[in-house]
């Protein structure tokens, strides 16, 4: 079910400021692609182009092509609702819906798209919570608010919420930035499981994390992709001296 994501000659402006410059990148299905680079280099913007979340804010202009599966995402006639169902997103700060219970947080997308009715909703919620290894921890308090969970549990709840609408691609924007090391480890385990069935593109500040979980790494600097390569190779031998400087801690 996973779909590959291809970005070709993507440029992005916010007002007069160019955030992305002629970016090209291809994320294979059933692989984790890590985007690394210093703060403000455009990683998050690149992620938000893929599910068109950038359109929530005015002042953006965009050129180039992004293909998810076989569909050009930037085509103005595309079904945005369907695109965002296929391309799920996990945010830097866990954002469970505070007015909904743990159960209803996971069911939110199912109900939104009418993916199941009655008994089936509960089955789907349970299976998603099991996939993110949260079921055992919450099965006795499914009716409590999602925000009462620990921050690490909240992020797994958000993962379950996204899983529930059956996406093909996962976009993750520094999903562990606000988590402690143990919670981070659990999310990383989940990502390693997820990529067997999904395409994962993850923004991270943590180079060790990129090395641990990704198959491909792209180094982004000032809105440009400086270097893309297999993670295993890139961390041993970089082709670009700027990547070398970043990875060895001379920059960033």
């Amino acid at each position, binding site marked *: 079910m996973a779909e590959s994501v291809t970005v070709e000659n993507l440029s992005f402006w916010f007002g007069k400021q160019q955030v992305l410059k002629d970016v090209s990148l291809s994320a294979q299905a059933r692989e984790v692609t890590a985007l690394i680079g210093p703060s403000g280099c455009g990683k998050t913007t690149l992620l938000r182009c893929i599910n068109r*979340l950038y359109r929530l804010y005015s002042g953006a202009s965009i050129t180039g092509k992004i293909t998810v599966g076989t569909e050009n995402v930037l085509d103005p006639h595309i079904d945005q*609702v369907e*695109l*965002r169902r296929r391309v799920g997103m996990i*945010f830097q700060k866990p954002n469970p*819906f*505070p007015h909904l219970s743990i159960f209803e947080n996971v069911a939110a*997308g199912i109900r939104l798209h009418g993916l199941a009715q009655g008994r089936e909703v509960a089955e789907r919620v349970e299976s998603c919570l099991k996939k993110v290894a949260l079921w055992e921890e919450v099965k006795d308090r499914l009716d409590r608010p999602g925000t009462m969970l620990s*921050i690490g549990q909240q992020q797994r709840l958000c993962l379950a919420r*996204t899983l529930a609408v059956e996406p093909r691609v996962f976009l993750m924007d520094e999903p562990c930035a606000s988590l402690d090391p143990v919670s981070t480890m659990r999310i990383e385990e989940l990502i390693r499981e997820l990529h067997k069935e999904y395409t994962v593109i993850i923004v991270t500040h943590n180079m060790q994390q990129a090395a641990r979980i990704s198959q491909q790494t792209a180094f982004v600097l000032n809105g440009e992709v400086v270097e893309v390569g297999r993670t295993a190779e890139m961390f041993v031998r970089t082709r670009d001296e700027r990547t070398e400087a970043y990875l060895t801690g001379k920059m960033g």
Partner: protein
Amino acid sequence: MACPSGDKVGEGFFPYLTASAAALLLLLVAGILLIVFRGAWPALHTFGLAFLFETVWNPVADVYGAAPAILGTIITSLLALALAGPLGVGTAIFLSELAPLWLRKPASFVVELLAAVPSIVYGLWGLFVLAPIMRTVLGAWLERNLGFLPMFQGPSIGVGVLTASVVLTIVILPTITAISREVMRAVPSELREGMYALGATRWEVISRIVLPNSKTGILGALLLALGRAIGEAMAVTMVIGNANAIPTSFLAPAQTAASQIVNEFPEAFDLHLSSLFLLGLVLLVITLVINAGAVWLVYRTKQNAGGALIRHER
């Protein structure tokens, strides 16, 4: 010394200065309550609780029952709330969620400006613009087509319950809009983004995220507006027709507690005066309770929204 002694004097003096200002304010509230209560005492002693339910208000016979005024107050305020509520919350949704970004700030500013228009100006507008329209167009139409219902029975004379309610609607609309918009803005954008990222449309984000997370605040805004409508005196007095009878038709003239006080205070003495004080006391208690509830609700929503953010950042 590096620190001039004047600063030290200020440092010791300033807390006392501000504390006494705050104490003065509390004393003032207590003083008002005391004066109103003292003024109301003879009437309270004479009529007791029956004052609230008696329907005859007759200064000639020196008999005073507040039911017409209290009922008039409740009907005009609730009708105004029913008209202004949907309109104000709808405008707030537009300003907070749907309007193009360049329009949001200026439009919100204009709405807040409306709140600064003195209510007597609205009253003038109601008397010279709205009342004639009511008499010849809207009221006449209601009388002609729905006049068989007691609640729309004529004659349509221009001033009355409906005209007062429409003026009140305009008086409280900015309050509802401005506060509702504010509590909707307090819903963290991460929640909106989370819902959009699941594939929600704008309407689904509004109905499933924004409204549920701001509903207590919106309720608070409605209560605050209700308090304002109940206490509004001048604008209402000018357009309600001032008749001491229980209103049976929306087109009939009536009286509210505030308009009765405005109308009769200059010529009242003895028990009449005391009855007006008692009416004022009733008004004061009702608005105090409603406003306290409203402030608490708005405070709680902001607190909750802020709390959600803090939990996010932990």
